[in-house]
């Protein structure tokens, strides 16, 4: 029996398969940029809200408005956190990184942090403030796990978490990392303590003094 070897079919099949992959990749890229634009738009909206808040308390620092400040800040914090999850999820699921977008997000977080501190001065606050420094470049699994442990903490306790990637090109994140002398990852800075290395949920409870 003569065996058939359809070499032209192997090659044509390979070419068509690669073309379909390329089309899929193109669709995926378009889709990712749509998602990224959507996140960017949301960052702009939240930044605008934060700016409004700043203008509002600059025109008159008064405890009368504390309820308003707090409820607005809660909404802003919730949206900011959601945007953070989206960015993290995109990185985890697709390895999608957009330094420019992350920089905008870090600016948003820093603004939010400053406004929160100012409002806490005026109105007082029970919430703990946690700065989380990580590096996608230099810290692998530990930082992923740390992010998830902090998420657990946020879901269970009154805590405001601000995350910063120290190794991307972001002036604001880089200056914060320098300010807190971050040398290793993950690093967690609370009001009175610096925790270096991976800390699980229960260790965080002890470390942050809940």
């Amino acid at each position, binding site marked *: *029996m003569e*065996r058939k070897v359809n070499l032209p079919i192997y090659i044509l099949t390979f070419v068509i398969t690669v073309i*379909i*992959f390329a089309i899929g990749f193109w669709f*995926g890229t378009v889709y990712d940029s749509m998602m990224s634009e959507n996140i960017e738009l949301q960052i702009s909206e939240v930044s605008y809200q934060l700016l409004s808040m700043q203008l509002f308390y600059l025109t008159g620092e008064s405890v009368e408005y504390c309820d308003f400040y707090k409820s607005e800040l809660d909404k802003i914090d919730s949206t900011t956190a*959601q945007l953070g999850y989206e960015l993290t*999820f995109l990185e985890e699921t697709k390895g999608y990184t957009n330094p420019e977008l992350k920089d905008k997000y870090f600016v948003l977080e820093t603004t939010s942090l400053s406004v929160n501190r100012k409002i806490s001065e005026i109105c007082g606050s029970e919430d703990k403030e946690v700065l989380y420094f990580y590096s996608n470049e230099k810290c692998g699994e530990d930082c*992923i796990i740390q992010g998830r442990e902090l998420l657990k903490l946020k879901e269970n306790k009154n805590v405001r978490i601000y995350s910063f990637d120290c190794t991307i090109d972001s002036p604001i994140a880089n200056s914060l990392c320098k300010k807190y002398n971050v040398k290793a990852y993950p690093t967690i800075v609370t009001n009175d303590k610096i925790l270096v290395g991976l800390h699980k949920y229960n260790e965080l409870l002890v470390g942050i003094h809940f």
Partner: protein
Amino acid sequence: MLILPSEVRLIEMLVAFVALYLTIFYILLYIKYRMEIKSSPANKGYKPKLSVVIPAYNEAKEIPKCIESILALNYPKDKIEIIVVDDGSKDNTLEIAQGYEKLGVKVFTKKNEGTAAATKNYGIKKATGDIIATLDGDSYVHPEAVNNMINYFNDDSVMAVTACIKAYSRKGTNLLTSVQRVEYIFTLFSRKILSSIEAVNVTPGPFSMFRKEVFEKIGYFDVTNILEDQEFAMRMQKNNMRIKSSMNAEVYTDVPFTFRELLKQRTRWHRGGLHNSLKYLELIGPRYGDMGIIVMPLTLVAILLLFIVFVMVGLYVMFPSPYLYALGVNSLLLNVHWITFVGLSVFALNFLWIYKGIQYFKEEKVTLLEIIIYVIAYSYLVTIYWISALLKEITREKMSW
């Protein structure tokens, strides 16, 4: 446990590539060989003596229909020899079969040895025909089936012919039997394409025909093998013997009605398939043409990858990313990856391909919904079969027919 989606994606990518490559390969083969696939060999009046060997174990309910379908064949009666071999049935299969002795049916009984192969071999050794067919006791044939198959033997190089096996269930119809019906029809179409590149790797038990010299040259069915019909076809391939596939020689075989029955059957098939693939790894390589270069290796790789991806997805579901909860519905949108688009194209292409294959059997009324269910359910079912087969392999559970 930390299962990262990026790790699952990598495997998904490989699965998508292999699945896409295989599907496109089949489509291009179809385009190239479509005339051969559509045609059937001409009737040149070749009517060799045919022996039909029917192995039967506890087939009291089905055996009358099986024997009567052979008696009703549109083929010269003096050229048909019917041999029923009862494999020590616990029911009254033997007595029922003996009732047909007056019609010329030869009935034998032997001690049960636990495999269909030994029963078939017993009958084949008694057969006097130039062409020997094996027919499972729970199957029955169309009156024109033999004529449609025998014409392939006009070509001296053809050593075996497989039938157009369709699924039916004596217990009725349900979702499982519908899925199996679609599966059987599509398998026929795929086998026909494989036949055009000399890559048929099974001569199914329900009804297959062989030249007598095949057994003389390469021996009988392997009595230690639980999937002896596949092992035999692979042995034929190893010996460069041509196997052709008929699309119009209709044979109906009883398929499992419950999931438990189906799982038992498929676990046996998959365990047997695994043993046979490992036994005939030598069929991989350019010496065996398209079968050795593409069909065998890529099918094995696809099975392995499919299994890995389902295990990984399973672990990912068991230990999900907490961001999934935090993001809620948004996570679905964010989870869309470029490989998702490739996956969708694999799904769409497979769906169209299966639809095209089923169109060949216009008399079979298959709905779009049945095809969709089949396409979706198939990969999940195959994974369950593989898990079950591997578990039984690990525990070394004894296999029987």
